[in-house]
């Protein structure tokens, strides 16, 4: 039995309690509460949760790496890393919403849905049973369908929500079909037992095992934005409120990777098939398509959406070479944590621009460096970090990923080529990030400084400090990711 004081249970209690109570309180108060009051309650719940995760880590109550217990949830470092990333993103989204949601309808429902979706993401990362994984996956997805379409009077928001809903529902359906196959051939829904079942699989059942793993890749790949399954992603991120785009890009996408790491990587290792090359090809396709499409975008949110597809490709490098290099998965985890902050900050900066100026077109943000200096600075630092410019945090995680790809070259011939593709794509991404920076600082002349939303400034300052500090002194985070990295090589040796 899992203890009642373990991290996922406490997070579930805190966030779930507040998330359910918020709309009820709002009705009891006859909807007189302000955006700020609901937002502060939400923030307290999120800070309490992240505090509890850190407290458990500090007291060493957390098992290292990823464990496969008989319970439906495991209190391990792997889950804690994802929980920290997702709670930081949820905090960004909530703080950004203080100014963005001003004068918009139903703030209590909005914050409550953010909390419910955050529980889903955190539980996906901690789940060790496929039933729990699926329930958490849906708890994460269903609130975000509503949040994407939250601007009921805005046709773009609506269209984005419907497209996102159809693809998301199909992804869930495919995941549950894959789970049903895995259950059928191994006789269990516990992830650890499923993997052990895969290892001793009867020879004529192996094709069904492959089909199940393929369905997991497709289903989780929809949320991760891997390339054959990415069509919905730019539409959803562009049409959604930008604060919610931050939650999607930096939060739900990472939950997809959490599930993929626990299920696909381990499951495919157990099947001992040549899945690595397939994932490597998907990684190269994903980063290339994402970055090339991003160059052609005229809309800031859409460009960031394509760049987010590109980053899914970088993270996938670590997954594809996981059996050949010890730092592959570690690099992926590090980049996941960094990407959550970088992309979250970039989208919150877009939310600030939308709140103050109501524009997202790249031509219309000329001279932003003079109009909104702090937001512009935050956007610049996060874009440079996304491109992997030293000494920012994105540089170290990309370095680790590419180094692991080269390291894998001793075993597989295509390992170094992944690193080559990654470096070329990073250079390419610097082109369009540089274009935005040029528009903001070197074009337009007559702009006057306008009042920036204070909540946005808070997020910007925090994320600038985070990115620069980790960039200058990455050692503690690298140690933490090492602590959280699941030991995959052990399972690979036959």
């Amino acid at each position, binding site marked *: 039995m899992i203890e009642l004081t373990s991290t996922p249970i406490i997070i579930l209690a805190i966030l779930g309690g507040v998330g359910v109570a918020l709309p009820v309180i709002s009705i009891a108060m006859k909807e007189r509460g302000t955006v700020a009051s609901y937002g502060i309650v939400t923030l307290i719940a999120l800070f309490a949760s992240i505090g509890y995760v850190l407290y458990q880590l500090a007291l060493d109550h957390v098992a290292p790496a990823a464990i496969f217990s008989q319970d439906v949830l495991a209190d391990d470092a792997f889950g804690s890393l994802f929980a920290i990333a997702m709670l930081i993103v949820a905090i960004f989204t909530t703080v950004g919403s203080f100014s963005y949601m001003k004068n918009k309808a139903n703030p209590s429902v909005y914050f409550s849905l953010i909390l419910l979706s955050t529980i889903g993401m955190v539980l996906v990362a901690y789940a060790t049973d496929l039933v729990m994984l699926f329930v958490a996956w849906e708890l994460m997805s269903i609130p975000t369908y509503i949040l994407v379409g939250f601007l009921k009077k805005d*046709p773009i928001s609506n269209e984005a929500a419907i497209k996102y809903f*159809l693809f998301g529902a199909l992804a869930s359906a495919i995941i549950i079909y894959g789970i049903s196959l895995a259950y059928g051939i191994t006789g269990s829904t516990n992830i650890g037992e499923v993997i052990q079942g895969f290892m001793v699989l009867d020879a004529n059942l192996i094709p069904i095992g492959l089909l199940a793993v393929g369905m997991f890749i497709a289903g989780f790949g929809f949320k991760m934005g891997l390339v054959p399954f990415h069509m919905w992603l730019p539409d959803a991120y562009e049409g959604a409120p930008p604060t919610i785009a931050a939650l999607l890009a930096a939060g739900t996408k990472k939950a997809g990777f959490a599930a993929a790491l626990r299920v696909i990587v381990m499951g495919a290792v157990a099947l001992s098939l040549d899945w690595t090359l397939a994932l490597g090809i998907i990684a190269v396709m994903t980063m290339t398509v994402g970055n090339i499409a991003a160059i052609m975008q005229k809309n800031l949110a859409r460009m960031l959406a394509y760049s987010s597809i590109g980053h899914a490709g970088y993270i996938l490098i670590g997954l594809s070479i996981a059996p050949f290099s010890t730092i592959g998965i570690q690099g992926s985890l590090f980049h996941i944590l960094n990407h959550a902050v970088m992309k979250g900050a970039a989208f919150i900066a877009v939310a600030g621009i939308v709140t103050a100026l109501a524009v997202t077109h790249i031509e219309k943000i000329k001279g932003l460096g003079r109009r909104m200096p702090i937001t512009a600075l935050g956007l610049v630092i996060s874009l440079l970090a996304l491109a992997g410019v030293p000494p920012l945090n994105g540089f170290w995680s990309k370095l680790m990923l590419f180094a692991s790809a080269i390291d894998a070259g001793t075993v597989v011939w295509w390992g170094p080529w992944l690193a080559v593709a990654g470096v070329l794509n990073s250079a390419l991404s610097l082109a369009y990030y540089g274009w935005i920076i040029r528009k903001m600082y070197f074009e337009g002349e007559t702009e006057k400084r306008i009042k920036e939303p204070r909540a946005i400034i808070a997020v910007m300052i925090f994320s600038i400090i985070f990115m620069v500090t980790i960039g200058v002194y990455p050692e503690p985070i690298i140690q933490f990711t090492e602590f959280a990295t699941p030991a995959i090589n052990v399972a690979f040796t036959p």
Partner: protein
Amino acid sequence: MSNELIDFVIVSVALLAIGIYGLSVKRNFIRMLFAVEIVINAANLNLVAFARFLPHSGGQTFALFSIAIAAAEVAVGLALIIVAYRMYKNIDVADFRSLKG
């Protein structure tokens, strides 16, 4: 006994194929929603059939969870479609093309 199981699996695979076909060919959102539901029900049929033939009966529990979750998902989906209908007076995919590029 295993012949019976293979019958269930064949029906389930057929349902999966019908669902994927419907989703890729139909252009009406309600029909597409039905197609997704057919895929989910194919998986439910699989789960219940496997649970019947396995010593571990967790599959039936999972099917119950999945039915409840699918209901919640459909409720949200239909709400989104109704809001879209009020705005566009239509629920055809072809009319939803302001987001592209």
